[in-house]
C-alpha cells in the first residue's frame, strides 16, 4: 500500500513537472513576438528613422488589433543606431542577446545593414532592411539571413534611366554623390543604367557625408556643362545642395534627377521651391492609385497627420511580409521562416510584392516621380521584371 502511494506520488510529480514544462512552452509560443528595430533616432538620418518607426508602429497596431500573428502580439523594441555601423552592431547584438528578439529590422545606412547582417548570421536570426539601397546587400555581399523588401539602387536607377532616356535622349550627366557605400553604389548604378542607354558621363564629385557647403564644387559642375545632374545625397545634405544650387543658378536649364532617398517628405519642406522639377525613380508614391495604398495613406495621415514616404510604406509592408512568412511557417524558427520567405508573395501599399529566393530581393513595379510644388507626381512606370536585374548572389 505504502509503496503504491509512493509510486502514485512520483507519477504526480512527473505529471506536474510535465505540465509546468508544457505551460512554459505554451508561454513561449503565445507570448509576444519580439521584433528589434535598430534605426537612426538621432543624427543626419533621423527623418528617415522617424518614417521607419511610424510605418512599423502603424502596421504593428493594425496586426495586433486583428489578433496578432498566429495569435501572438507583435512587440517592437527600438534602439538608436545613430546611422553608425559600429553602434548598429552593438545595439543589434544587445537586442539578440539580451532582449532575445525573433526578428530585426530598421537599419538605414547600408553599412549598418551589412554589419548587422553579420551579427544576425552569428546569432542565427533573420533581419530585413526596409531602407538601404546599396545593391551589394542582395548582390555580392548577400547573406542567407538578410532580406530586403524595398527597391534597391539598381531598380530605382533602371526606372529613372528609362525616364531620362525618353525625355532627354543622349543627355550629358554630371554626378554628385555622398562619399560612402550608398552614395557610390547609387551613382555607379545610375551611371551604368544611363550610359547603356546612350547618355554621356561628363564628370562626378563625391562630397563628404554631412557636407555643409557645395559651392566649391560648382566650378567643376559648370565647366562640365551638363544638361542633367544626378545626385544621391540625402537628409540635411539635400537641403543644402538644392538650395545652394538654386542660389548659384546651377540648376538653370538643367534637369536635376536623383536617388529616391534624396528628397523625402521630411526634408521637402526645408528645400521648398528649390526642389521643383526634381525627378526620381521610386518604389513608392503616396499617389499610387490602388485600394491598399489609399487605405494605408488615409490611416497613416490619421495617425500622424503627415504623408508616408517610401521608407514609411516599405517599413509598414515589412511587418505584413513577416506576418505572412510566420503564418506560412507556423513558427518563428529561423530556418522555417527563411524557407517560408523564399518566393513569398504578399500585399503591400505598392501592390503585390514577391521575394526572390535567389538573392532575397523583393520584386516590385517601379515609378518615375517628379516634384511639383511640394507634390510627388507619377510621370512614368517600369514593370517589376524589367527593373529587377539579374540575380548575382552566389552565397546560397
Amino acid at each position: 500500500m505504502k509503496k503504491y502511494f509512493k509510486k502514485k506520488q512520483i507519477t504526480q510529480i512527473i505529471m506536474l513537472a510535465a505540465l509546468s514544462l508544457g505551460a512554459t512552452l505554451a508561454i513561449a509560443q503565445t507570448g509576444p513576438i519580439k521584433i528589434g528595430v535598430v534605426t537612426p533616432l538621432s543624427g543626419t538620418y533621423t527623418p528617415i528613422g522617424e518614417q521607419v518607426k511610424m510605418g512599423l508602429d502603424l502596421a504593428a497596431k493594425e496586426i495586433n488589433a486583428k489578433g496578432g500573428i498566429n495569435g501572438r502580439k507583435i512587440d517592437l523594441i527600438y534602439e538608436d543606431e545613430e546611422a553608425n555601423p559600429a553602434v548598429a552592431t552593438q545595439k543589434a547584438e544587445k537586442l539578440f542577446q539580451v532582449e532575445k528578439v525573433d526578428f530585426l529590422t530598421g537599419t538605414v545606412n547600408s553599412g549598418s545593414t551589412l554589419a548587422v547582417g553579420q551579427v544576425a548570421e552569428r546569432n542565427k536570426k533573420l533581419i530585413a532592411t526596409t531602407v538601404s539601397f546599396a545593391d551589394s546587400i542582395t548582390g555580392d555581399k548577400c547573406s542567407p539571413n538578410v532580406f530586403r523588401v524595398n527597391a534597391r539602387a539598381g531598380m530605382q536607377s533602371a526606372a529613372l534611366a528609362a525616364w531620362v532616356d525618353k525625355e532627354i535622349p543622349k543627355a550629358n550627366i554630371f554626378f554628385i554623390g555622398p562619399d560612402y557605400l550608398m552614395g557610390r553604389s547609387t551613382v555607379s548604378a545610375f551611371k551604368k543604367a544611363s550610359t547603356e542607354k546612350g547618355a554621356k558621363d561628363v564628370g562626378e564629385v563625391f562630397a563628404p557625408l554631412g557636407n555643409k557647403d557645395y559651392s566649391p564644387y560648382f566650378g567643376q559642375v559648370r565647366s562640365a556643362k551638363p544638361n542633367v545632374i544626378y545626385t544621391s545625397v540625402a537628409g540635411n545634405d539635400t537641403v543644402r545642395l538644392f538650395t545652394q544650387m538654386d542660389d548659384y543658378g546651377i540648376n538653370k536649364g538643367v534637369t536635376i534627377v536623383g536617388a529616391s532617398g534624396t528628397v523625402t517628405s521630411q526634408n521637402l519642406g526645408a528645400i521648398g521651391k528649390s526642389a521643383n522639377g526634381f525627378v526620381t525613380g521610386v518604389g513608392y508614391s503616396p499617389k499610387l492609385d490602388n485600394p491598399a495604398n489609399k487605405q494605408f495613406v488615409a490611416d497613416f495621415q490619421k495617425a500622424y497627420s503627415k504623408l508616408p514616404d517610401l521608407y514609411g510604406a516599405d517599413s509598414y509592408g515589412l511587418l505584413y511580409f513577416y506576418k505572412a512568412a510566420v503564418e506560412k511557417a507556423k513558427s518563428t524558427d529561423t530556418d522555417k521562416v527563411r524557407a517560408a520567405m523564399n518566393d513569398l508573395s504578399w500585399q503591400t501599399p505598392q501592390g503585390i510584392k514577391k521575394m526572390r529566393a535567389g538573392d532575397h530581393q523583393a520584386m516590385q513595379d517601379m515609378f518615375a516621380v517628379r516634384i511639383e510644388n511640394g507634390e510627388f507626381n507619377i510621370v512614368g512606370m517600369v514593370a517589376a521584371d524589367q527593373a529587377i536585374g539579374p540575380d548575382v548572389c552566389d552565397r546560397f
Partner: protein
Amino acid sequence: MLESLQYIYAPQMLNGLSIGVAVILMALGLTIIFGLLDVINMSHGEFYAAGAFFSVSLMAMGVSFWLCLVLVPLLLLPIGFAMERLLIQKVFHYKDRHILTLLLTFGVAMVLEDSYKIIWGSNPIKPPAPISGASELLGVMFPNYRLFVMAFGALLIFAVWLLIYKTQIGAIVRAAAFDKEMSSSLGIPVMLVYALTFALGVALAGLAGVLLAPIYSVFPTMGHDFILLAFSVVIVGGLGSIKGAVVAGILLTQLQSISSLYISPVWSDPLVFTVMVLVLMFKPTGLYGGMKNG
C-alpha cells in the same frame, strides 16, 4: 591660363572666402573666450545653433530678419552670462581647470543639442534668404546674400577687433587676461569682466547662427558643422588672437577650397588637420601670440 584663373580659380577663391568668413565668425567667440578665460568652450557650436533656432522662431512670430540680427545676440547675452556665473565659475578655480571646463561645456553641449531636438524636432528648417537673387561676379553668378554675409562678417570682425584692442573696455579685458591679481588690485571687477566676456563670445556664436542659417539650414546637430574647422582656425591662428583667427581662417578655407579642385573633397578635411598638426609641432603658440600679448 588667364581664362582658367578667371573662371575656375577666382570663383573658387570667392567661394572659399564666403566659407572663410563663416568659419572666422565661429572662431571669433571661441578665441575670445579662450584668450581671456583660458576656457575651451565645447558648447560653442550649440550656441551657434541656438542663434539659428531663435531666429527661426522669432521669424515665425513675424519678427524681421534684420531685427533678429540685433535681438538674438541680446537674448544670448544673459544666457552666456548665467552659464559663466553658475557653471564655469564652479570649476574655474580648481587646478585641473582645463579638463573640468572642457567636460562641463561638453556636457552642456549634449544637453542643448537634445533640447533642440525636443523643442524644434529633428527635421531641417530652411529660413528664406532675406536678400534674394544673384549677381554676376568674375564671370559667374554669386548669391547676393552670401555677398552680404561676407561684407557684414568682415565689418563685425573688425568691430570686435576695435572693441578688444582700441577701446578702454578692451584694455580692461586684456588687463584682466594678462594679470588677474594685479587687475583686481587696481579695482577692475575681474569676475564681472570674465562673465561678460564669456557672454560676448556666446552672443557672437548666436549672431553667426542667425547669419548662416539661410545658407546652411537649421537642425539640432548643426553645431558640429563648423566647430572642428573653427577649433583648427583658433589653434593655427594662436589661441586668443583675433588677427590670428582671421589669417588662419582665410588660409585654411582657401586651402580647402583650392585643394578640392585637385583631390577628392573627402581629403580636404584631413589636409586642414595636417596643417594644424604641423603648426602645433613647429609653433605651438600658433601664428600669432594671443590676446595677452596685445
